[in-house]
């Protein structure tokens, strides 16, 4: 039995859309160019600034995890262009269904740090109100959210509104049945949904070639959905590609599938040790395609980035990191009895009884020497 662990074959056969090359050169793309005509220096700077901030967030969160302040962290290192470019293409009314890795997206969407970090610290399952941000909670079950986005988009279509839903997913996720079924439903109901797949080349230790021997974006046409492959380390191209898909969605064109080809430069999560399954050559190869470096080169070459602006971006990112750290370490521990909260929207006598029982149980320790301590310590 041959297990295909190689790179997708036929990748060359699919055009990878690009606007800024790895060495910072602006190139042209017939499909994408019209979607970035309005992009001026300010926009480019803000895209770059956001990437710097997202990378800074990642560094800070990784450090916090090492210091025991977070239980876990899923790094975004290397994927900043995909995250920043895609969310910049969205309107506030559009609804986002992320995975666990879109913490940069959440930040740019306006999520507060106690919320973003609370999840990874273990304080809460979700740290924001999806309706305030128009962004769902991080999804851990691989592929699941693509169905939610599709259903949400079906709802938009029923209402005849000109907005859309976007689902983030990984390359590994494309193997899940749910992702397939969401494409089937999206196509059948012409739902205004964007499937934004970050092919970061790895699903934990499994290379993308194990999930698909051919380019992932090539799946979409089989459903009657256009599939586009874009350089996921090129923030401008990602912005353009998602705008292209968004325009289709808003004008009754239905679903689109975008494969953003990028690379997970860090571990899968802070619990992972990538040295067990991948070599340094691959890393070096991708370091040369770094999304931040190429944008900086592009800006510098175009005379758009002066020292002051750059210092400002850096200072802003540091401030964000400081805010993050501060917010994170100050999240109060949840109150014991909240374990029973919000399970149901309506009355539930069986759970009420368990709550009352536990309240009495906790109360029985009160006034005892070392009260509560036993409870604290004995579960682990």
């Amino acid at each position, binding site marked *: 039995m041959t297990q295909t662990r190689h790179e997708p074959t036929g990748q060359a056969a699919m055009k990878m859309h690009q606007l800024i090359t790895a060495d910072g050169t602006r190139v042209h793309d017939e499909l994408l160019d019209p979607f970035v005509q309005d992009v001026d220096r300010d926009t480019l700077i803000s895209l770059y600034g956001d990437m710097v901030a997202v990378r800074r967030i990642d560094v800070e969160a990784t450090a916090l995890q090492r210091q025991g302040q977070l239980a876990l962290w899923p790094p975004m290192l290397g994927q900043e262009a995909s995250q920043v470019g895609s969310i910049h293409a969205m309107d506030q009314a559009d609804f986002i269904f992320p995975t666990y890795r879109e913490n940069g997206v959440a930040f740019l969407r306006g999520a507060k740090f106690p919320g973003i970090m609370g999840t990874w610290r273990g304080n809460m*399952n979700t740290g924001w109100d999806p309706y305030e941000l128009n962004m769902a909670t991080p999804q851990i079950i691989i592929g*699941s959210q693509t*169905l939610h986005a599709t*259903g949400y988009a079906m709802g938009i279509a029923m209402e005849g509104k000109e907005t859309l839903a976007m689902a983030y997913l990984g390359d590994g996720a494309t193997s899940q049945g749910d992702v397939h079924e969401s494409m089937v439903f999206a196509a059948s109901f012409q739902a205004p949904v964007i499937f934004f797949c970050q092919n970061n080349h790895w699903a934990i230790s499994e290379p993308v070639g194990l999930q698909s021997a051919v380019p992932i974006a090539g799946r979409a046409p089989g459903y009657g959905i256009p599939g586009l492959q874009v350089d996921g380390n090129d923030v401008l191209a990602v912005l353009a590609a998602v705008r292209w898909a968004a325009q289709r969605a808003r004008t009754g064109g239905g679903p689109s599938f975008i494969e953003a080809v990028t690379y997970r430069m860090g571990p899968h999560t802070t619990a992972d040790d990538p040295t067990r399954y991948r070599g340094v050559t691959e890393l070096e190869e991708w370091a040369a395609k770094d999304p931040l470096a190429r944008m900086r080169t592009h800006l510098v070459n175009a005379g758009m980035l002066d020292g002051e602006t750059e210092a400002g971006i850096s200072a802003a990112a540091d401030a964000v990191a400081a805010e993050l750290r501060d917010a994170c370490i100050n999240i109060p521990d949840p109150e014991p009895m909240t374990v029973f909260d919000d*399970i149901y929207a309506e009355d539930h006598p069986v759970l009420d009884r368990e709550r009352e029982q536990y309240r009495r149980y906790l109360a029985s320790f009160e006034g005892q020497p070392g009260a509560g301590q036993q409870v604290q310590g004995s579960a682990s």
Partner: protein
Amino acid sequence: MSTMSLTQAINAGLRQAMEDDPKVVLMGEDIGTLGGVFRVTDGLMKDFGSHRVIDTPLAESAIIGTAVGLAYRGFRPVCEIQFDGFIYPGFDQIVSQVAKLHARTHGKVRMPLTIRVPFGGGIGSPEHHSESPEAYFVHTSGLRVISPSNPQDAYTMLRQAVASDDPVLYFEPKRRYHAKGEVELNAPLAAAPRMGAALVAAPGTDVTLVAYGALVRTALDAATAAAAEGVSIEVIDLRSLSPVDYAPIMESVRRTGRLVVTHEAGKTLGMGAELAATITERCFNYLESAPVRVTGFDIPYPPSKLEKHHLPDLDRMLDGVDRALGRPNSQTGMED
């Protein structure tokens, strides 16, 4: 009052729910043009349009998963699973998403889904068409699970399920689909018994017999048969499997001292286990004998020519009653 079958009552309930709230949409396989393989949704696509009665592609995980998305958008989807045995491809979406989203979002996102599942056997069908998967969902925190036994409850409880802000699994006793009954269509919903209420279906004094769904009818017949032998059975229609309404059951068992629970699902970790365990916990000093379970066997559903040997029937219920009463029964003399 109208006389109607259980399917017609559900149909009327769906119709009313759709009229009451434009956000109610129906989804499922063959529910539109065909009106469902049991005709439960007959005529609804014609009257409400294909944007509210949606024939979906053949994929249960997607039916539930897109309903979750619709709920995010403020809709109240009512999903039909064509037969009990076809719910499992949607299990992940139900257990990991539908059941958990309210808790996951600290109450911000509500999941007012209703998932309709025709369930149970006795209809001579092939494999996967006669299952009783309710216990899986009763064990899943975050869901509500109900099952009506008659047209009136079918109508009212369907409307209550759709109106509930929590996700509800609505198990339809398909063996009783054609049973007719009187239904009051126009009474205010608030006047009806709560969706979560267990009701005494027949009063009695000697033994408490708890049933739900299709077996309520059999239990009532057993009570009639037992009465002829001088045994008075109190039949309780459970109606809500999760949460269980323990008050009337406890009240009854404290009077009778004896409990029998019956269901088609396998015995091991079927509803009977929970009812027996909880009633023992809460009524130990009142029990004259151990709670008895009269259930399907712990086997995959058998070929239909054997189903009568799998399903609890009147005689097996009476055998269980004999056990509860300490009279000679199928287990007499059985060593452990």
